[in-house]
C-alpha cells in the first residue's frame, strides 16, 4: 500500500534538546523516551521499555558519537523523531556517544521504516550535515538538517 504523505509527527524545537545531563546510556535513553512519549498515549516508562528491548537485540550506536535508538511501538499513530545532545560523552555499549537521534515507529510500513533509516544514515554520513548535528547550538539548524527524514514518502 502506498501512502501519499509522510507519517511523521511534526519535528520542531520541542523535539530537540542540548546539553542534557546524563552519565549513562540508561539515563540518556530515559531522556529520549521522555521526549518521544510526549503527545502519544504511552508513558515515558513504556517508551523506555520499547527502546531498551530493541537495544538488547543489538546496539544502535552508529559511529561519529551518534546512536539512533528506535523501536516499533504498538498503538502509536505516527512516527516521531527527537534529537538529544548530552553534556558529556556517554558510554554507549563500549562506544562514546554524545548524541541520540531517536525514532518511535508505527508498527507497520516496513518500507517506510527502511526508507527513513536510509535517509537518516545519509544525513549522518554527509560531513556538512553531520558537523551541524555534532556542533550547532541553533535548534532551527537541527530542524533543517533532520526534517528531510520526516518527509519520506514511500
Amino acid at each position: 500500500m502506498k501512502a501519499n504523505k509522510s507519517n511523521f509527527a511534526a519535528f520542531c524545537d520541542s523535539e530537540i534538546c542540548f546539553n542534557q545531563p546524563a552519565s549513562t546510556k540508561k539515563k540518556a535513553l530515559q531522556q529520549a523516551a521522555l521526549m518521544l512519549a510526549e503527545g502519544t498515549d504511552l508513558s515515558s516508562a513504556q517508551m523506555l521499555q520499547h527502546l531498551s528491548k530493541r537495544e538488547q537485540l543489538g546496539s544502535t550506536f552508529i559511529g561519529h558519537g551518534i546512536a539512533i535508538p528506535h523501536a516499533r511501538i504498538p498503538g502509536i499513530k505516527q512516527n516521531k523523531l527527537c534529537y538529544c545532545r548530552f553534556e558529556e560523552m556517554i558510554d554507549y555499549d563500549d562506544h562514546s556517544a554524545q548524541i541520540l537521534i531517536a525514532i518511535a515507529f508505527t508498527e507497520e510500513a516496513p518500507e517506510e521504516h527502511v526508507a527513513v533509516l536510509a535517509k537518516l544514515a545519509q544525513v549522518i554520513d554527509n560531513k556538512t550535515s553531520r558537523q551541524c548535528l555534532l556542533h550547532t547550538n541553533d535548534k532551527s539548524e537541527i530542524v533543517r538538517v533532520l526534517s528531510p527524514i520526516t518527509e519520506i514518502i514511500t
Partner: protein
Amino acid sequence: MIQQTLSIKNRLGLHARASAKVVNLANKFGSDITLICKGKKAYAKSILEVMMLGAVQGDECQCEVEGDDETDAAAAMRELFDARFGEDS
C-alpha cells in the same frame, strides 16, 4: 573476485539491526565486500553505507567479494541473506 546476487527475503528489509548483522559478519573477513542495490553502492563494513541502500523485501543486491578469504566471505554473506538475517519472517 566473486560476484553473486543476494535477495532480501525478510519482511523488514535492511533495517538497522539487519544492517548491523551484515557489517558484523563482513568485519570477520579480510576481503573487501561491496553491495550494490538499486544503483547504490555500499561498502559492507560500513553501517551507514549499508543502511543507505534502503533495501526492502524483494530487492536484489549484487555482492562483490575480493580478497584472500573471498570464498568463505561470499558463502557467509549468502548464508546470512538466505537466513533472513536471523528473522522469522
